[in-house]
């Protein structure tokens, strides 16, 4: 019995155990108040589906040895352009959603490829360079949003302002399209079927890809580049594949996020997108060198549920919005833990 327990403990890992226990405690507390547990869990399901693909995006980047993809905004921007193009043309429902994806994906591929060319030259320092490339692109795009040639009045400031609005609502176009698809309710729990299916589909695709010949090659390149060379693999090519994959997932992730959230926040909105996603995959059990699709799934479920449940529960206890601060502390604490855990250099 004891042996089995220690085995479970080692397999699951201390951070996950703590977070799960904490989560459970929160839910128990919630049940004791007038809060609706089913309602909380419904919100959690939405947030899981909404953030899931961002966390998936971490997997190929880590697998290929480029570490946690702090440059997530590179892909997010591509997704934003996709969403804006669909909105500019007032495309509604699934049509809008699909057009957004169709624009976002090729842009994500191009942006991801260029980004990978840079990262291949700074191997070993990808995370730091990625962070600031992400920040720069967000800041640079702020100028673009001001001058972009969009004309749809729903997007641009009414008289007096210049450029795109800071917050756009998707309610009139394709907000919630995916969430509402096949949505059903059970015991007061609302299940956003379409959103979760879409997420599950991408998780499966990624899982499948990682089991294919190029997927295996990618993993080898990340785990031991020198072995990869000796096995005739082109390291930079596979690193590019991984980074492009990560960037494209970020682009798709944004389109999904925006339709679920119901708003698109331009300008500095996407500045910190990478951090919860990075924390998510780490909470799921990944390290800066190892990540599986399963880690991404566990991570997003634990982290997003925690955030969703923590806010209303703590609000019952203390005043004020603690959710944002909890997010900052948990996510950065988790990243800090991961960064200091590996010994030696990143490439060692």
């Amino acid at each position, binding site marked *: 019995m004891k042996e089995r327990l220690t085995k479970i403990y080692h397999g699951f890992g201390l951070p996950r155990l703590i977070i799960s226990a904490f989560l459970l405690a929160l839910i128990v507390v919630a049940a004791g108040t007038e809060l609706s547990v089913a309602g909380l869990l419904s919100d959690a399901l939405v947030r899981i589906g909404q953030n899931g693909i961002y966390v998936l995006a971490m997997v190929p980047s880590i697998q290929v040895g480029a570490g946690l993809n702090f440059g997530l905004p590179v892909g997010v921007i591509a997704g934003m352009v996709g969403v804006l193009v669909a909105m500019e043309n007032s495309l509604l429902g699934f049509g809008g959603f699909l057009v957004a994806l169709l624009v976002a994906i090729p842009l994500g591929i191009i942006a991801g490829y260029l980004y990978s060319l840079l990262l291949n030259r700074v191997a070993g320092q990808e995370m730091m360079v990625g962070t600031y490339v992400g920040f720069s692109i967000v800041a640079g795009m702020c100028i673009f949003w001001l001058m972009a040639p969009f004309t749809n009045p729903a997007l641009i400031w009414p008289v007096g302002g210049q450029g795109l609005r800071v917050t756009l609502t998707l309610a009139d176009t394709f907000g919630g399209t995916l969430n509402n698809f096949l949505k059903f309710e059970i015991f007061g729990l609302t299940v956003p079927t379409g959103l979760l299916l879409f997420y599950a589909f991408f998780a499966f695709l990624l899982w499948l890809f990682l089991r294919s010949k190029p997927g295996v090659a990618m993993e080898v390149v990340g785990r031991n580049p020198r072995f990869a060379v000796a096995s005739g693999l082109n390291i930079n090519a596979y690193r590019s594949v991984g980074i492009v994959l990560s960037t494209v997932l970020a682009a798709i992730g944004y389109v999904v996020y925006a339709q679920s959230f119901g708003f698109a926040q331009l300008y500095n909105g996407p500045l910190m997108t990478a951090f919860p996603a990075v924390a998510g995959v780490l909470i799921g059990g990944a390290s800066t060198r190892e990540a599986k699709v399963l880690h991404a799934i566990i991570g997003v479920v634990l982290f997003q549920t925690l955030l969703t449940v923590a806010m209303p529960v703590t609000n019952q206890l203390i005043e004020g919005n603690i959710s944002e601060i909890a997010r900052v502390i948990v996510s*950065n604490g988790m990243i800090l833990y991961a960064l200091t855990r590996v010994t030696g250099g990143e490439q060692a």
Partner: protein
Amino acid sequence: MNQIKRIISKNAVPILFAIVCLLGVYYAQMPGQFLFMEIIKRMARNSFLVLSLIIPVVAGMGLNFGIVLGALAGQIALILSTHWEWSGIGGLGLTALLATPMAVLFGVLAGMVLNKAKGREMITGMVMGFFANGVYQFIFLFLVGTVIPFDNAALRISTSPGLRNTVNLSRLRGVLDNIWTVQYGFTKIPIVTFLVIALLAIAIWAFFKTKLGQDFRAVGQDRHIAGVAGIQTDRNRILAIVFSTVLAAWGQIIFLQNIGTLNTYNSHEQVGTFAIAALLIGGASVTKATIGQALMGTFLFHLLFVVSPSAGQAIFGSAQVGEYFRVFVAYGIIAISLALHAWRSKSLAKASMEEDVSA
């Protein structure tokens, strides 16, 4: 001729930014007097913080994104000093004194964390800054007034937990700047503040002439070799971060006494980014930074800051373009510097290998 070329290529970054700034000044069409006033004000405010970055760079720990911790120590001291109603230059000195042990503690902790993340100091420092910010917010937004009893109308609204979003530092506002000012046109030059900055510059310069400074330099060049020579590398690295954190705490106090109000939850957020961008624009890199570069960078960066909105207005018909542009420059210059550093150290390793082989 070749020498000119060498000087230009060595100082490519500041020269490039000087050109950008000149263009900005030209298009912004600002009155010279106003420009001068703004620059003087901003140099007085920011130079100290930028100078606090030099020591860790020389000690081989890269750009200290963790100076946020120092800024937080400074702010906590300011909050307490407001609570106790300290005032005047004596009050400011006392505040700095109060910030010092906190900054030392934070610095030791940060240094220990960074020693566990060798080769990844910068990203770790940055995340540590975010993390510390979260803890700081948790304390001052939630615990204060609920768990920690704290009643002071100047700092809190008694009906909700946490400190006010802005704290008026009226007792300390300008107390350093105003000790002795010299009027030039309609600019008041805060002589004492500049003297303090000059004193710090001299102190840093002198510090690198001492045994400890030499040890820092040695550790910065090569941890392994310094260690073999018997220098305690880990201890020196922690010390370097402690110095930087303490200086940042003092720097933040100087910064805020000039501004006069403390944005409890935002004042420190961009401290690291802007100070680092300024240092890099002066021509510093991840491995090399001098006092001249820090001061030159502070000047250029803030010149850009001042002229950007007007220049944006003049060129693009939108002041906002200019505002976004300067943020873009801050992030962009850091991204480029980091990439160049990583790129160079990679090709350097390759070159030394090739050299070895063709020798």
